[in-house]
């Protein structure tokens, strides 16, 4: 049963990474607020899932939060569907290590497209990460202003 759900053909019929031919989801292309992100595929993050391991493996599987876990990397798109998963990595490994591993083996990202990630991933062509040390939640958000101003505080705008 588990093999059925986590293997071909069911898994690959449900979890597919978009290609450069795939269209941008309507939620993004239809919303003027997101027009700056029209090459974005989705968002990526790692999560720790509690695991049960043998005593000798526990050292590798213990994560920075202190419990035994496997580190899993997930990518989801703007329809809240998973489009990639990488599971079973040591709990002690960092998100960036998983990312590099995935990119070298089976995570193909169409040229020019990128994923949103948090600062735990380094910048690279296929990721858009936030600026470090910048407060992102501005008061305009509370006032429901039209504009998104994520990055503005960090940029030197020429006069």
């Amino acid at each position: 049963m588990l093999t059925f759900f986590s293997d071909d053909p069911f898994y690959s019929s449900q979890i597919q990474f978009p290609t450069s031919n795939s269209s941008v989801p309507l939620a993004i292309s239809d919303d003027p607020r997101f027009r700056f992100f029209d090459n974005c595929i989705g968002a990526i993050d790692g999560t720790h899932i509690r695991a049960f391991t043998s005593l000798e493996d526990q050292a590798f599987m213990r994560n920075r939060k202190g419990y035994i876990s496997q580190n899993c990397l997930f990518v989801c798109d703007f329809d809240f569907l998973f489009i990639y998963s990488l599971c079973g990595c040591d709990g002690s490994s960092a998100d960036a290590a998983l990312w590099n591993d995935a990119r070298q083996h089976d995570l193909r990202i169409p040229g020019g497209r990128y994923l949103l990630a948090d600062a735990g991933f380094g910048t690279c062509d296929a990721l858009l990460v936030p600026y470090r040390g910048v407060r992102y939640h501005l008061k305009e958000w509370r006032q429901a202003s039209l504009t998104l101003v994520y990055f503005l505080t960090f940029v030197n705008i020429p006069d």
Partner: protein
Amino acid sequence: MKRRWRILQLPPEYAMDIQARLPMALCALHNFIHRCDAPGPDIIDQDFLDGDLPDPIFTDDDMGDDARGELTDGPADAAERRRADNRRDEIAAAMWADYVEERTRHGLAIPAPM
């Protein structure tokens, strides 16, 4: 995910390869439920009930290596990181320009960049 599926909250006493398959299987199930359940409970994918799996969204024709993109050799080098940083700056600059324009249109003062 972790809240939705109880098996992810406590460590299951299976071999590690089984445990590694669990989140993958649940992701696939999540997508399946999301796709089939979204319009309403009466529209269950009839193909699936008949024994056929839902059609893949992409056919093999779309899956040429060009369309799928490249794998990498290793972590990003300095040039790639700089390129990515520039792209981020461009997006930010475009947003800032848009923000200024929006404020001007509404006759509001433009805050100085901090």
